[in-house]
């Protein structure tokens, strides 16, 4: 089973264009051995197809359960803001925002194109929880 572990997004172009054709290229940044699981970090660069200008950079780290133990390195390189520990200061937060999600939030988010059945199918999500 695959779990989304971390996400880093850099917005390279402000304001973000509201129209255009985007082209995204992906590359593997790191494959780490976390014992039982493997951790894979994928980098993607999204460009405006016509101008070639970079709009977004993303780095996504996923955990793949049961795929570790292959003898790879367990720690990756420092990638600046993408790997910063970001420990909160001891003081009370400077700002807090509270928002209730809606019951149909996952169904709505599905429209973004992420069709993983984990987020929509009760039987599938139940099977996944039980399998661990």
């Amino acid at each position, binding site marked *: 089973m695959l779990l989304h572990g971390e996400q880093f997004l850099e917005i390279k172009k402000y304001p973000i264009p509201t129209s255009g054709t985007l082209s995204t290229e992906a590359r593997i940044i790191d494959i780490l051995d976390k014992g039982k699981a493997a951790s894979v970090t994928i980098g993607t660069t999204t460009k405006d197809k016509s101008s070639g200008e970079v709009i977004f950079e993303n780095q996504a780290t996923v955990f793949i359960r049961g795929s570790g133990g292959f003898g790879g390195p367990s720690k990756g390189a420092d990638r600046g803001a993408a790997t910063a520990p970001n420990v909160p200061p001891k003081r009370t937060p*400077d700002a807090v*925002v509270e928002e209730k999600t809606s019951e149909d939030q996952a169904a709505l988010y599905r429209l973004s194109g992420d069709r993983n059945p984990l987020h929509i199918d009760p039987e599938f999500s139940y099977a996944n929880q039980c399998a661990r």
Partner: protein
Amino acid sequence: MQTNVHANYFRKVGGFPTPILHGLCFFGISGKHIYQKYGPFKNIKVRFAGTVLPGETLVTEMWKEGNRVIFQTKVKERNAIAITAAAAELLSGDSKPAAKSPSGGSSDIEVPGFGASKVFAQAKAQLDAMSAQDKAAKLKKANGVFQFDVSNDAGKTESWTIDAKTEGTIKKGKAAKADVTIIVKDSDLVALATGKGSAQSLFMRYCFEGKCANL
């Protein structure tokens, strides 16, 4: 990972499991909360530390450290962590004023008691971040100097000027020669700018398309 979270979750739903929310979905909602409090950011990083069920309440706690906002997101109903080790780097931080603009940082624009001043400051940050080419195109489209005379509930009036004609600047104070002068209540301007989610883009769009008179 997060076995305890799932155990709680099973108790809560009483054996009727519900599909979990996409990590990128509550990542986006947390990002929106940072935007609401601190304006646009150039990058954002999160660690997904727990699950969120659709319908649960997200609480984003933020600490501003210089140009960065360190944050974490919790699920209110279960007092459980959903996002940790997270931060966003702001587009215009007050830790480094005048970094991008010779006319000074946003502190020159913001005035206590005027919510609208934050809107102008954010619009300026976005304008400053544009490439010269984009800016020139916008100026050509708008081609006007807009002066806003904003009055607040305390009965005070302050002015801001958006020069979308020659300089491409947003600053506090009256225009030397305004093409359009808009007289507006502080609360109305803030409501307009924040009412549709994307605060400064709506505001910018109005101004740069020359529709400020519709305010």
